[in-house]
């Protein structure tokens, strides 16, 4: 006889049984590694004061990573900020700066163009941007299917065969670095060029930058020049208040940068 008491008892037992496969699955991987000296943790350093806005990094990134050249999406881009004497901030990044900044006109796409007189400028600068490969990536947390993840070297990747294209990660990223790949229709983002890192090369954007504005380093190596700069200089990160612990550090960043 199935009494109400028994029914509850069996259902509970059944539910516990169903939970078992998940527990087994979760324990198949190894436990989070406590960073040993041989483990690498890639970090990026951007020296905003060295950037001239030539856009060679964007060109190289698109070519290297097979991001369609003429589509208006890019894994990395360069922003121009012009602050006028009245305190207004004018920013743009036409075509992600793929062809560089070659006019004084601020081009904000469908928001229109602005011409600023040189005499009105109080300061101006260029800011290269890319995925921050956060220590606590919000984009990974929201993925419902396990298609985006972080490797043990700290790189955040997307599994194109597994991504269902729901777009949650694109909305979750506070830095707006993710987009849909125009060909694969899956979430797309900077990979720190892991294929180059593993071959002992620098990421394409770092290689392409003539002015040394972009550098890659291994945070777990105390003798790495990038690690030293991060430890010994006044560096900043973007949107620190979000708690994502971004791993792209900036030298000479101005407060107007968002």
């Amino acid at each position, binding site marked *: 006889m199935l009494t109400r008491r028994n029914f509850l008892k069996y259902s509970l037992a059944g539910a516990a049984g169903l939970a078992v496969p998940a527990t087994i699955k*979760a324990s198949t991987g190894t436990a989070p590694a406590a960073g040993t000296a041989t483990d690498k943790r890639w970090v990026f350093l951007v020296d905003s004061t060295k950037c001239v806005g030539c856009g060679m990094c964007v060109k190289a990134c698109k070519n290297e990573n097979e991001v369609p050249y003429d589509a208006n999406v890019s894994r990395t881009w360069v922003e121009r900020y012009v602050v006028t004497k009245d305190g207004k901030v004018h920013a743009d990044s036409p075509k992600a700066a793929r062809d560089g900044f070659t006019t004084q006109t601020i081009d904000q796409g469908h928001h229109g163009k602005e011409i600023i007189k040189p005499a009105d400028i109080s300061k101006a600068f260029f800011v290269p941007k890319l995925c921050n490969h956060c220590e606590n*990536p919000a984009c990974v947390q929201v993925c419902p299917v396990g298609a985006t993840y972080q490797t043990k070297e700290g790189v955040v990747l997307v599994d194109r065969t597994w991504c269902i294209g729901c777009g949650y990660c694109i909305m979750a990223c506070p830095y707006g670095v993710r987009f849909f790949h125009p060909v694969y229709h899956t979430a797309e983002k900077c990979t720190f060029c892991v294929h180059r890192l593993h071959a002992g090369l620098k990421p394409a954007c770092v290689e392409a930058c003539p002015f040394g504005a972009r550098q890659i380093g291994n945070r777990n190596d105390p003798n790495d020049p990038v690690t030293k700069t991060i430890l010994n200089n006044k560096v900043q990160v973007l949107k620190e208040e979000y708690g994502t612990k971004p791993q792209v550090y900036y030298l000479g960043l101005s407060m107007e940068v968002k």
Partner: protein
Amino acid sequence: MKNHVFRPLIVVIGIVLLILAARFVYVPKDFGSYERGYIYSWHRQGDENFWNKFTIKYQGKEYCKDCHEKNFTSINKSPHRIIICENCHGPAIDHPSEARSKLVIDKSREQCYRCHVKLPYPDTARGRIKGFLDPEQHNPGMECVTCHDPHDPKLGGA
């Protein structure tokens, strides 16, 4: 046990088993949570190989040294030594062996505008590169390479 309780229960259990079986078949064996734990590295490990094996396209400046010695040596003596060849000629991939990696020769003025259109931003490195606020004033309509060798751009004793 009453039938009207038992029968639907079997159906429910059947559905659950079916879902579990489907999951077992569909989810790849290398799916798991790895070094960064369940929250940050719940994924298919095989995908890491996909990204690690992505084709390298930019080969760097040293790659060109042996075959294009003339341009290599002249650019290294010029202020353009900081620009890698592939920035202007496109990614080498496996040049010169494959037809698809025939490199571009782009003589457009726009190629040079990236750096040599002067922008009036005094505190930036851009503001300090030699160039022209209005490039259309400097020999308009002519390719820059008519006068300046991109691998050694300075003219006359400068």
